């Protein structure tokens, strides 16, 4: 019995893993296990030897079970400890490449602007891309023979309609559709017959805005535009408002921001002026209000037309406007935010 005890304890101690220990366990306590045999063997001993032998056998059994349990626990802890160290598991290895889509950078900035203006109570509206001469020009105080018609090189369709040269037609359409007070933004695609180069496109995007109410003033315009630009260019910025002439606003302005590339000191991007022209705007011309069915004595408004591509190029540091319509995934997939 002592021999068995020694042997078994040694075997238990020698088990290097749980499988080996299970084997020892089976050898001792499994079918035909040596300890079970021993305990069974007590009943075949002479009667006066049985109590002592039985007690000893039982003690052995208990001791070996305890040893097994202890070793088992120790081995489990070893496994856990090894697991924690896990030298051949590299969490810095890249996982599988999962397809991940992206929005076009103009969509991203447009959505932000829509959110921003919606937070100020503006309504997101749309208008047709194919327009009538009336809505694109006449209703906006641009009669035939007006030089402004030349400066917007128009695409004409066979059959007499044109492709809208700006999003401004939607100003009048909206005024005809909804009663004032109005706060509307209209992002959209516009078209001008221009030679395409690094800073010019024939198909581009504008974001038009219109506010019409009683008592809307230049002061309101300045405040709204400055707030919007600060949000969208994500920095404290200086703006300056200088006279600009457009037939559909009076007074009309050009809103400039100080150049982000040189902080206003002067560089090639801002043509050494320190300012970047970004936002034509102005107070809606009374003739346009009238075309929208409103009385300019009662209602005033302001309007602005942001060149979306210009803003997007400033935001992301894109240098060539042709990339936007180029359909090249090496460009598009860089704009990963949703």
């Amino acid at each position, binding site marked *: 019995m002592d021999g068995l005890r020694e042997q078994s304890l040694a075997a238990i101690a020698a088990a290097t893993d749980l499988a080996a220990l299970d084997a020892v366990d089976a050898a001792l306590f499994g079918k035909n296990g040596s300890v079970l045999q021993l305990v069974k063997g007590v009943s075949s001993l002479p009667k006066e030897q049985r109590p002592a032998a039985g007690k000893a056998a039982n003690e052995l059994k208990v001791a070996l079970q305890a040893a097994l349990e202890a070793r088992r626990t120790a081995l489990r802890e070893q496994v856990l400890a090894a697991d924690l160290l896990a030298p051949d598991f590299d969490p810095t290895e890249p996982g599988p490449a999962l397809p991940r889509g992206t929005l076009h950078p103009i969509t991203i900035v447009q959505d932000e602007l829509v959110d921003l203006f919606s937070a100020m109570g503006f309504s997101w509206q749309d208008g047709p891309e194919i327009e009538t001469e009336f809505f694109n020009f006449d209703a906006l105080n641009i009669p035939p023979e007006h030089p402004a018609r030349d*400066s917007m090189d128009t695409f004409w369709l066979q059959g007499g309609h044109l492709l809208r040269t700006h999003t401004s037609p939607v100003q009048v359409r909206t005024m005809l559709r909804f009663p004032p007070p109005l706060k509307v933004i209209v992002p959209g695609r516009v*078209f001008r017959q221009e030679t395409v180069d690094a800073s010019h496109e*024939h198909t581009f995007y504008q974001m038009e805005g219109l506010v019409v109410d009683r008592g809307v003033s*230049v002061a309101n315009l300045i405040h709204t535009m400055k707030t919007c630009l600060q949000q969208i260019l994500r920095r404290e910025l200086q703006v300056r408002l200088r*006279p600009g002439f457009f037939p559909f606003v009076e007074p009309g302005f050009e809103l400039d921001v100080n150049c982000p590339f040189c902080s206003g000191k002067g560089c090639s991007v801002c043509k050494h002026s320190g300012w970047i022209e970004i936002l034509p705007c102005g107070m809606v011309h009374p003739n346009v209000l009238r075309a929208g069915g409103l009385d300019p004595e009662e209602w005033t408004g302001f309007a602005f037309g942001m060149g979306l591509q210009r803003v997007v190029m400033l935001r992301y540091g894109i240098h060539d406007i042709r990339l936007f319509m180029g*359909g090249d995934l090496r460009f598009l*997939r860089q704009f990963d935010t949703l």
Partner: protein
Amino acid sequence: MKLSYRWLARHVDLSGLTPEQIRNDLTLSTAEIEAVEPFGQGLDEIVVGHVLERRKHPEADKLSVTRVDAGQGEALQIVCGAPNVAAGQSVAVVLPGRRLPDGTRIGKAKLRGIESFGMICSERELGLSDEHEGILVLEPGARPGTRFVDAVPVADHVLEIDNKSINHRPDLWGHHGFARELAAIYGRELHAPVRRQALPADGTRVVLSVEDPADCPRYLGLVLAGLKVQRSPAWLRYLLRAVGQRPINNLVDATNFVMLDLGQPLHAFDLRMLSPQGVHVRRARPGETMHTLDGQERRLEPVDLLITSGGEAVALAGVMGGARSAVADDTSTIFLESATFHPTRIRRTSTRLGLRTEASSRYEKALDPALAEDAVHRMAELLAEVSPGAHAAGPMGDATGWRFAPRTIRLRKARLDHKLGVTLPVERVESIFRGLRFGVQRCTEGLDVGIPSWRATKDLTIEDDLIEEVGRMHRFDNIPPVPLTGTVALAPREPELFLAQRALRVAAAELGCHEVYHYSFVPDALLAACRADGQEYLRVANPVAPEITRMRRHVLPSTLGAVAQNLRVQPEVRLMEHGKGYQPERRDAHGLPHEVRELGIVWARNAGAEPYPELRSRVLGLCARLGAPATAADLHPGGDLAWIHPGRTVALRRGERAFGYVGVLHPHVAANLGIPPTTAIATLDLRALLAAGVAEPRFVPIPRFPSQPVDVALLAPSGARAGDLARFLREVGDGMVRDVVLFEAYRGAGLPPGTKSLNFTVTLGAEDRTLTAADEEAYLMRVRQRCAGLGVTLRG
């Protein structure tokens, strides 16, 4: 347009004001100044020299050896390469050891063996022009050694104006106009633009007539005699040079000067070339031609306005003079024309002939007719100065008798304050108008403002125009910003726009699509590749290129056009495009063609599993996400979608209403575009989706009794549609079927040829009890019995 600082200073006192300041203040109040450049700077070390002697260089034909008195004591020996150097001239000299404006230091040199001390300069070396044919010869008079800049005042700064910012201001196309603005901005005195000349009451006059005063509201003429055509004096030459004009001779230069000074173009005819019948302004007759100054023969049309004499055209009014009547070097008597033409007339002719001149660009702006008279007096005065002996030979002729009709506009103070959003004291407003030289009278409502003639032709017509004047002179930056206030009400919504926004986001996140933008025009070649050539398209009359005239009817051909290029750089391409298609056969109430708003999707893979099955699942998922869970159970009929595979594309529907499709690209289109034939495509028509009904999920109580999944394998002919069989399995369930999902379509070994095994999991359940094995048996029995009618058998 360029302005010279020195030239401006002739009209208004600019002391203490730097060119940069002027640039800034003009930009903020008047017009955009794009740049300020120095002119004629860096000449402090140049001196006047007299050429005492000139002889040919013994060793070099093209060189001369001169002795020049440059006021330094000893005369300098200077070797000079100019062909025009001669004794007796006054020239510009760089002394040895001194610098040229570009920084080059001139020293002692040896040219072909002869020493040269210093240099005689050409205009180009002085940085005054590109003239380098010969040296600059100065007017005599300055003592040798005098600083060049004291003898010839040239130092200047040039402001470059962005012409687009003064298109609406006809009064700003000359130095006096800008000087007037500066006088208003800085509160300085403005010098009168002209000193009126005493013109003879009698003498040589040219008979003047105008066919239609609408075309030509004012036509003035003056005969000037005693002219001698020669080089203009230096002061005039360099003012012209500073603003980018090339001096020709005193006569031409004087007309240019007056134009750039006052903004009124002038034209001089050699009087010998005019008929004694006089000058008549009329429209061209059909077929009429003329030779213009630039040597071209022009075909004229009845829209062109002509200056004629003796029945023949002598000038294209407002645009360019005729060749025959142009002034020549021996001209001594001219007929000077100073006129105002209808701006549209000039613009049309100028555009038609592709002739844009300094004159025509001014006439197009609607000039103030009062200016024409000022210009006559100015020219008379100037000509006498630059050609001594020149004088008016008769009275000024006037063909139309134009008179300025003064106008007043009322500016209501309340409206001014209201529109600007700031209340200015009325004194401030008055002083702004007075500074601009507008007449001002107070009235109960505000101010009655008299509009001067130079602002009366088109720019100031309504009250709001006056509000702009006040705002710009006060400076818009001085208006404190004020937030908008207003009603809080829900703004009207355009659901299509929000739907598109959400669809793009879901498609980016769940379908892994990258959004592309393409032009609305489609090249003919791409439409042909998509088999969509023969359909009806809107066409652009003035396209960017002759093969890109058609406006796309649907978005997808544009998207397909980007696949091949991208598949070259990555193995899998997932694109989406949100945009409009334009369909001419349907029109809206205004007659405008119908515009569809679509989201197009393309998935293409060079290798690996076919994209369609996964795209199908994802697209159905997208529809569910948008609140429009759809079925995709029947083939799309096609219509004008020529690029879909007719046997492998299903329509997306809610109930009866279709709003899109998902499927495989037509194999011919794939071949034409060079992309894999497994390319999968989809399109959602967003407006149709909205019309088909968008709904929120509706809660269905969780079944109290458990579901029982049953595997059903149907052996079907290859052409059988899973959708039909799924429907069958549901219907045959008598309300006990909660769901039917196809988990495998197996084709291959072990099946009879021409068949496939469609393996479904049918989820059975009842509301009132737990189903038993008997229920399952009963269901399978019904399936077995009725499926034969569909040509399928239940397996197993």
